[in-house]
């Protein structure tokens, strides 16, 4: 084996990892465990049986029928039937139920008098996703009863129930969700969180590998093993990180498209190319962050600020179009913001290759710009031993 050069740097890096269980764990085992945890967390796909309380102050056959229909909804579980709203609110505050369905006294009688009182769902919007599911299911149960009554009343104009229903549904809103039509939260959360978690792990691992040499004042030994050239030293040093994360990223795609059976609507190859580029971007960002700080701890702090908060600005849940200008602008400076629509387009949407290429342009810029910033800074710093060793 050559004593200096690319292979020598690589060998030096691998030897270090072999002797440092912590670094190996941070590079490999910790990310793998986190990905498995995240995948497992959302494995039920769609929340079911969310507990609610029902306050039935009507005690009519109609209100009992409504309670039965509520209990039969997939998303709901009628956990408590307190006598009053005040008692029910305490059950909500204690966290045992997520909402209260209130059926007022004389509800059925007033309906028959054509002066209906509403059924009120008091949900808990501090739990936004849960409130959405419960709201939809309670609405469905209540309207299913209301519609039956309406049809019966409309039928007096003749033509029987079928025609009455047709007349009532003259103009409808046909609401459809394309791409992930069941709104599986497994596909949604796992699909978005696994790549962003891996992106973050990759930046941390690359920052750690590079920043370590400055912390330990071993920059000269590192460069010497490479035979002097900074590009070769960087390539050899970051090759293990790059290879591990390229494989893990393709493992994510294989898990989704293969094991979980979510076949991509677009192109598997284009999706794999995009996630591979995200990993390369992670490495170049690490080069930039270490170049800017020459300090492992500060580079990691910046990683927290720049990468770990990126999810919030990416539009993965709250749409970017709805954000304020500053948040939109900052989101545009984060690579994951640009990766996300490319992945969702190829995986779920079936976007065209042209759309993909258009989306890849900013991602590729995230390879070039960090290198343009980071490489000159590093090139200068490796010749200035006085600046090494900062913690």
């Amino acid at each position: 084996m050559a004593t200096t050069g690319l292979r020598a740097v690589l060998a030096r890096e691998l030897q270090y990892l072999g002797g440092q269980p912590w670094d190996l764990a941070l590079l490999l085992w910790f990310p793998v465990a986190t990905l498995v945890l995240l995948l497992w967390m959302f494995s039920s796909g769609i929340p079911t049986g969310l507990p609610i309380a029902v306050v039935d102050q009507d005690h009519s056959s109609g209100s009992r029928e409504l309670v039965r229909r509520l209990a039969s909804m997939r998303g709901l579980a009628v956990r408590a039937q307190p006598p009053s709203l005040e008692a029910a609110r305490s059950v909500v505050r204690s966290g045992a139920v997520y909402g209260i369905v209130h059926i007022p006294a004389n509800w059925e009688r007033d309906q028959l008098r054509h002066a209906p009182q509403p059924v009120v769902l008091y949900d808990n919007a501090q739990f936004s996703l849960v409130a959405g599911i419960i709201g939809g299911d309670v609405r469905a149960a209540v309207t299913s009863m209301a519609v039956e009554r309406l049809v019966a009343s409309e039928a007096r104009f003749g033509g029987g129930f079928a025609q009455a229903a047709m007349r009532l549904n003259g103009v409808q809103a046909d609401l459809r969700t394309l791409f992930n039509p069941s709104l599986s939260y497994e596909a949604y959360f796992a699909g978005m969180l696994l790549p962003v978690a891996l992106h973050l792990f990759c930046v941390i691992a690359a920052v750690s590998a590079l920043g370590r040499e400055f912390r330990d004042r071993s920059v000269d030994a590192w460069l010497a093993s490479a035979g002097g050239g900074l590009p070769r030293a960087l390539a050899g040093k970051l090759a293990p990180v790059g290879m591990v994360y390229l494989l893990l990223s393709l493992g994510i795609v294989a898990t989704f498209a293969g094991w979980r059976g979510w076949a991509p609507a677009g192109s598997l190859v284009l999706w794999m190319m995009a996630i591979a580029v995200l990993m390369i971007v992670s490495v170049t960002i690490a080069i930039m962050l270490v170049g800017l700080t020459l300090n492992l701890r500060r580079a990691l702090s910046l990683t927290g600020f720049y990468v770990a908060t990126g999810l919030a600005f990416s539009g993965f849940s709250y749409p970017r179009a709805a954000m304020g200008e500053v948040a939109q602008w900052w989101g545009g400076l984060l690579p994951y913001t640009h990766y996300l629509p490319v992945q969702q387009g190829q995986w779920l949407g079936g976007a065209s290759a042209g759309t993909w290429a258009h989306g890849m342009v900013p991602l590729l810029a995230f390879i070039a710009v960090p290198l343009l910033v980071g490489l000159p800074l590093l090139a200068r710093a490796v010749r200035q031993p006085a600046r090494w060793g900062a913690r």
Partner: protein
Amino acid sequence: MTLWQALVATVGSALRDRGLVIMFVVAVPIYSFFYPLPYSTQSVRNVALLVVDLDASPMSRDIVSRLSAVASVRVGGRASAIDEARGALAGGQIAGIVVVPENFSRDAARGTPTAVTVFGTGAYPVQDKAVLGSVGAVVQGVAGEVTDARLARQGTPAAALLQSERAGPAFIDQPLYNLARGYGSYVVAAVSILIVQQVMLMAIASLVGTWVEGRTGTLFGPQAVGPGTLLGTIAGFALFVFLGLLYFIGFAFWFQDYPRGGNFAGAVAFAALTALTVASLGIALGAWFANRERAFQVLLATSVPFLFMGGIVFPREAMPVPINALAMLVPTTPGIFGFVKLNQMGATWSEIRPEFLNMTGLLLLYGGAAWWAVRVRRRQATE
């Protein structure tokens, strides 16, 4: 070292560390302004729709003009065919497609069933719900007018129509807490607790790791370490965590106008308990890592799993039992639930009993872990 001496020495050590003082003192305020930025607009607005109007009638134009009056969506343009719009939806450039079918207004007038079709994208569920909900409401408004016109034609008395028009809705969906249904109010209330925990765990574990490296600090210096020293050190670090939590529940929520102040005294008491727990865990981790930088390497990537394990974003009922059990070991799990119940929902102390018990258990567990880890490290150092 007495408890009080250890407390003072710990606070002094945190403030004198030029790298970490930023984490102890200013990181929480910085994140309190930075993190809520995306959510400050509170509700979905301006997401783009493409309209495919195959009817081109006054009625279909009426639907489009009503859509442009809805804040959550914006009519971003027109397409002549669904296939043309579908590509833009798949690529994420638009959020939804509204299709008015051919002969829509004629069928509506005749009573032939017809429908306005709305396509959202399940690739972005929050946006999807906003699109389907708002377009659905507009179409229902039009449908109600069409039905009324037909009923009048069929001879329903005007008085009866008026009565049914004035009748309230059959169903009302009213939030008990977070009354504006603000997206930021929901996310920030939970994430703020996570921010304090993560920033403080990194700062404490990093400083304790630095102590181990340099054989210094209250716990790793040459002097003997008794229970008083450990308790004083925990209290010293807990002071920073406590101030971070108070900053959020007493200032940031007020300044940024998020729901707050439900049970302020209870929240302050729970903040003290949480602060002691986080400080103990930070000391245990720092003694274990024995290194200045490792806390950052390990903890940076835990924020996302910790947030989702907390059960606010994705409900506990839908998570596997072992994950819920694991989540109980993370202070943010009882922390986020407890603080949301106290601050945003105004829970009484007895109503946060599960969170109080969970957090107290963690304090004992991590207090014990800190004691054990410090002793093991000190023994290693003398060997």
